[in-house]
């Protein structure tokens, strides 16, 4: 059983937002790198499937050398292999295409992604891989059960308002994983140290093709939509809130 888990190093935006020249992106210095929260759940899901069924977990990311930090985290959690795809523009189509090419060469039984990233939040990359490779896809999944003998996977996915949907599909399949599906394991210090020394395979995949979109400009959301300030002093602000509650409740 080979599980490919696709992960991303996202950027958390500082309080101080500065746009780079051309105003189509933020200054990289404003961003604090971090493993995408959804992806830690995807890694844990992959590890549990491997622990139950045997096989290997391959963690992959499309990013610069700095992004290797998220692969080290996956290795420390217990992934067997780590692959970094170099030179890929962050865009759901371009990353999806590169992951698709990687999928063809690895032939995994299952491809897992987080349901979305916290920085771009397209919620698309996993589905793009599925679309380009014509694989079945279930998204926003909160339970996964693989049947290796039957060659299929049963999942539960979220719909709205607490409704869940139990589906079954043949492998290979793409699943995008929702937060809360499990409790991602901590890597102990020893595992982290060992992960530091594990090799990371770096591949350059053909970055041909059009991105899903192009950014014309990036800007701060308009001020008019925003909330009226409560007032700078904590006490006054609390008093105003108390008044609002009393006035506006039915």
């Amino acid at each position, binding site marked *: 059983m080979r599980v490919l888990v696709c992960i991303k190093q996202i*950027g*958390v935006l500082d309080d101080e*937002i500065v746009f780079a020249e051309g105003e189509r992106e*933020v200054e990289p210095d404003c961003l604090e790198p971090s493993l995408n929260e959804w992806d830690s759940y995807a890694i844990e899901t992959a590890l549990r499937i491997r622990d139950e069924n045997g096989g290997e977990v391959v963690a992959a990311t499309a990013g610069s050398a700095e992004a290797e930090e998220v692969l080290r985290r996956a290795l420390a959690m217990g992934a067997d292999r780590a692959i970094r795809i170099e030179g890929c523009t962050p865009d759901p189509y371009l990353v999806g295409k590169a992951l698709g090419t990687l999928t063809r060469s690895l032939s995994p039984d299952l491809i897992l992604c987080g349901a*979305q990233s916290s*920085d*771009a*939040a397209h*919620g*698309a990359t996993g*589905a*793009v891989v*599925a*679309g*380009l490779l014509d694989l*079945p*896809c*279930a*998204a*926003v999944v909160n339970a996964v059960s693989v049947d290796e003998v039957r060659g299929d996977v*049963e999942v539960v*996915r979220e*719909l*709205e*308002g*607490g409704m*869940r*949907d*139990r*589906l*079954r*599909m*043949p492998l290979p399949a793409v699943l*995008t994983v929702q937060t*809360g599906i499990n409790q991602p394991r901590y890597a102990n210090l020893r595992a982290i140290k060992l992960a530091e020394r594990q090799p990371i395979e770096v591949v350059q995949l053909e970055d041909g093709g*059009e991105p*899903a*979109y*192009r*950014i014309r400009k*990036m*800007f*701060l959301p308009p001020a008019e*939509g*925003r*909330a*009226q*300030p*409560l007032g700078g002093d*904590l*006490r006054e*602000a*609390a008093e105003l*809130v*108390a008044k*609002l*509650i009393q006035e*506006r*409740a*039915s």
Partner: protein
Amino acid sequence: MNVCVIAEHRSGVLHPATLELITAGCDLGSVIVGVAAPVPDGVLEALGVAGVTEIVCVEGSGEELDPDDYRAMVAELVRERRPAVTLVASTPHSFAYAAAAAAAAGLGFASDVQALRLEGELVVATRSFYGGKVDAELEFPNRGGVLLVLRRAVWTPAPATEGRVPRASLAAGRQSRIERVAFEPTVHDGVDITKADVIVAIGRGIGDRENLDLFEALASKVGATLAVSRPLVDAGWVSADRQVGQSGKTVKPSVYLAFGISGASQHLAGMRASGTVIAVNTDPNAAIFGAADFGGVFDAVTFAQELDKLFTP
């Protein structure tokens, strides 16, 4: 400009987001609606709205809400009707097929689109990044068509119309590989937050689990119901009964107090209809402030303690 709206339906009910897509589509051009067959009568009726020039019923596996069927439906509609713009609603279901269909068909793509306009024949879409802290205008050069997933509750639902909308049928031409085992409603025995008139909602910004007590006490004193955003349910601190958001409950209290909630899209989807929204968050750029009527940059716990003093036990 030709626009194709992808309808979604379950258990004989049209998803209300479909009517929002029709409004957005009518702003751009002439709208047809694609709907997965078999189409329940109630759904066909609900699609009789102003601006729809044709309802195209697309035959698939016969199973409803099937991701493979919807992916094939988009492919077929794009191939047969060549719309300049295809509009899909932002629902948990559409995450499974929208980008897949768009990529396979070579369309431009963007999701969580909050505004749309035309420059001549070119589509310009606005969406946000970094948790709603920045907005961006997107374009789709060198594309014959574009598929856009629109944010909920931005466009108003299209009103019903008199007269019958013409219908057509298409076959999707491929089998679904997906089998439905069962729909499973989650049943919780707890509180019904959708009935509350005042809600105290808490998110990750409340810090440690011990701080829950403070907010429970505050809610009680103030005559409010306690609700939460998703992370507190994922962490196992609070039952999913109390979750406000797309995968939780939709609430419309007179007063919604959001403490330590960042304002992620899926959360906002659950509380947009609230009367007065008051937000407290340490991050001045938090997206919640864009959805609130009043806001203060304060620590949630400190503020709650201060507010607590003002209400008699």
